[in-house]
């Protein structure tokens, strides 16, 4: 059998399998990211942890959804740059809105915030890498997917953490940046299920 016949048979066999479209992948990332944040927030609330309803949650959620779609959508490169810029703007807002040091003293180690940020993002990081595997390598897409995954902990930070601006910067934004870097790094080494742009 020639290489052409082998490729044809493999292609036709693949065509019989169910396919997951890019919209569904983007929705999966949003669910893994914002859904996890919602579930953890609800569980924390049920356990007696008071939830703070900061206004910054709104742009965070919008940015997270935008970033997930921007990372996945074919073409539309501008969407990714807008998403990245929005993530930076929201990060600044997260710090700026804590200037008054409004929070009560911490009843727990500050590092536990970072740990929660990272742990809560695990499902979203997995979803982001699964999504990135389904297309040709692109560091800008990976950046957006990583930022979308990191939104999980950022939303939780806004709902559950009463720390001041320095705390947000050192223990939340660092975690968000680290998660994004992790996704960018790992995605560049992933084997691809598709090379489509």
């Amino acid at each position, binding site marked *: 059998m020639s290489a052409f016949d082998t490729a044809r048979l493999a292609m036709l066999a693949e065509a019989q399998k169910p396919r997951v479209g890019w919209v569904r992948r983007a929705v999966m990332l949003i669910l893994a990211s914002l859904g996890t944040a919602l579930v953890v927030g609800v569980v924390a609330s049920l356990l007696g942890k008071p939830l703070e309803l900061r206004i910054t949650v709104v742009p965070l959620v919008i940015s997270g959804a935008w970033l997930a779609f921007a990372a996945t959508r074919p*073409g539309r490169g501008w969407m990714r740059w807008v998403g990245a810029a929005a993530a930076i703007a929201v990060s600044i807002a997260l710090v700026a809105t804590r200037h008054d040091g409004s929070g009560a003293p911490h009843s727990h180690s500050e590092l536990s915030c970072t740990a929660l940020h990272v742990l809560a993002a695990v499902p979203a990081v997995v979803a982001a890498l699964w999504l990135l595997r389904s297309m*040709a390598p692109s560091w800008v897409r990976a950046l957006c997917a990583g930022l979308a995954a990191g939104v999980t902990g950022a939303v939780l930070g806004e709902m559950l953490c009463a720390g001041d601006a320095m705390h947000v910067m050192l223990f939340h934004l660092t975690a968000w940046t680290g998660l994004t870097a992790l996704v960018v790094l790992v995605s560049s080494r992933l084997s691809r299920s*598709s090379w489509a742009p």
Partner: protein
Amino acid sequence: MSPRVGASEETSAVSDEVLMEQFRHGDTRALEALYNRHAKGVHGFLVRMVRGDGALADDLLQQTFLSVVRSADRFERGAKFWPWLLTIAANAARGNLRRVKLGVEVLGEDAPEPSVTPAHSDPAARKRIEAAFAKLPDSQREVVVLHKVEGLSFEEIAKILGITSTAARIRAHRGYEFLKAELGELV
């Protein structure tokens, strides 16, 4: 894009883009028609991209068409199928070359390109041309192949490779300069 090889009578008059749309709606005969049209062209492109490694080109051909199937919904309405297919093939080739650490990135300035059409009647010349192509850095070879062999414009190449058309021209210039130096009287 006109049919390349052995398309069936039923689909030979249908454009690539219409066939792709039909495949997206579940018609695997449309997919097969696309394969019949383009498999040889893609394979030839891949052979040039991977420096004549036939086995790797065979594998990449399969990866390319598997990608078409898996990512059919990533093909945007209004886009041209052939450049999209070449984009996938180029991505697959680059990804695999990177993996085996053959990739070299070089940029240069603009200039007119010489002809590098192989002298089919002269096997020795053909061998020299193939050897010169194999020596080209990956980034230059893919632009030269896309421009000279596939006949794509620099704007189309820029879209395929995710670079600016100026960068594509620069890479092509460097590639043609290299080939001119390697091949001398043949170009």
